[in-house]
């Protein structure tokens, strides 16, 4: 395929070829990062870092998986790293007062519901889904984004996440269940889509 020629050309240092690769994939990369982090700012950083990393380590890419698989494996890992880093950062203190030279002051956090415009938007289905996805666990979020937003096949996902097909199947199933529950909790499915809910499950 033409992509292989592009990659070969990149390895000789052809930045134009690399630019074409970036053009091919930047949207998907950016969107994966955006859905994973929920922040355009972080998505931008991750996209940049990921492509720069791809460029510098192109020599390590042996071509035993598709380029896209390799690329999205890097991006996925960067997203997870970013989330991990963020967790470390924010775990420190929300209730802990801020220390100042002349004593301490209570920490003030913005109330996301305070903005009336935002509150209205909350009812918007797409926004709600976006947020519900962001509230999933990292593993669930990643697999939902890869499969249901980006449309990768089970095989591709298994290769990206370095796990078996069976794992992809079961993890995706659990992730979708979790997402559905989150959406139901927000009463987004109250419009007759789901009538039966949990009733009658043979447990």
């Amino acid at each position, binding site marked *: 395929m033409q992509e292989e020629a592009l990659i070969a*050309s990149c390895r000789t240092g052809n*930045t134009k070829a690399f630019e074409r690769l970036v053009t091919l994939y930047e949207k998907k990369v*950016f969107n994966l990062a955006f859905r994973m982090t929920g922040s*355009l700012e972080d998505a*931008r950083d991750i996209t940049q870092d990921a492509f720069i990393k791809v460029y510098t380590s192109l020599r390590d890419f042996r071509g035993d998986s598709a380029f896209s698989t390799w690329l999205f494996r890097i991006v996925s890992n960067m997203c997870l790293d970013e989330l991990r880093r963020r967790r470390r950062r924010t775990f420190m203190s929300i209730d802990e007062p801020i220390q100042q030279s002349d004593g301490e002051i209570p920490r003030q956090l913005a109330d996301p519901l305070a903005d009336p415009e935002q509150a209205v938007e909350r009812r918007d289905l797409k926004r709600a889904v976006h947020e519900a996805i962001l509230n999933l666990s990292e593993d669930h979020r990643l697999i939902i984004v890869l499969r249901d937003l980006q449309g990768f096949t089970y095989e591709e996902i298994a290769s990206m996440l370095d796990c078996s097909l069976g794992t992809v*199947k079961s993890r995706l199933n659990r992730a*979708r269940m979790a997402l*559905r529950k989150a959406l139901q909790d927000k009463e987004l499915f109250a419009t007759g889509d789901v009538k039966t809910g949990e009733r009658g499950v043979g447990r």
Partner: protein
Amino acid sequence: MKECLEVRDSLSAYIDDELAWDEREAIESHLAECPACSAELESLRRTVQVCGQLEEVEVPTEVRAAIMASVRGKSLARKRRFFPVMTAVAAVLVVAIGIGVGVGLGVNPLAPFQGKDARLAGREGPDVFPSVAPAPPPISMGVPSDPQFTTAAEATKDQTRVAGIQPYETVLRMIIKRADVLIEVPRGTLQEMERRAVSFVEAAGGFVQRSSTWEEDTGRKVAGITARVPEDAFTHVLNQFDGLGKQKYRNVDSEDVTERYIDLQAHVRNREAQEARLREIMQQAKNVSEIMQVENELQRIRADIDASRGRLRYYESAAAMSTITLTLREEGTPGVTPPPTGFWWDIYQAFLGSVKALAMFVARLAPYLVLLALGGLAFMAGRRRQ
């Protein structure tokens, strides 16, 4: 018939048609009889469908520009990003050891900068800092690739020359030379000697940048000239000045700015590549806010390029034209030259003293600074690890 629980584990794969035909059939037959599982399937389908409705967001245009700007500044070598850290560590170590050795030997690291001090003591401080800096490292690191470089066919050719910049060997050394000379001339000849000094400068193709005359309290006349002469005439003019009278003091120092010059050149080229790239983006900008964004960035880069170019020009002119500061002084009556005293002189001495103290303080601190720097770098590396 399958149990509900087992069926529910496979519903997701069923939706995606990822089941073997026998599994699929088993599920379908269960669904036909189990409304709860059917509802479950519907809600999962709806979930998947709703996810599919999320639109992709557009990538900000500056993302690709930033990627490409960064990529052009990189070579394909592995582990490249490790270099700046190691270089920084090495540089800190070298400086620290240098100062440490200097202090240990009882050498005042500030000696070369204390011309006046040395003049009084009748000696010139040992030169701790050699006037010609050690050869800078090869410049391949961080040198931008040629922005004009377009086709794949050119790729290999382009790699063989150091991208976009003169090979190091052919860059002339940029050395800024400065001299400070004090010459005593017989009483009454000051004006004549000054005129001759100016004529030496002009004959060598130089010019007088500044000149002044004044009279000391003792009634002695002094003339000061700051002259710029072509670099190759530097020594010649200095020797000619010596012929004007009795040389009382002479300090020559030179500063090698080759490395700084090359770095700056690379920086400018990098920035210009970025600028060209941004102009391309400008053409593709779709709305006013994009244009504004790019415009802002362009302005910032342009300002940086202008400033850097200015400094390049300064280096070029400073290296091409050496500076000589000549002071001509009438001979005083023997023994009448008193050591300088007075309020301002005391202030000057106090200032020198504090500079020395500060330098010693930094020198003593150096080993700990190195440790701190190492720790800091390790911390940063840890944070930025990916």
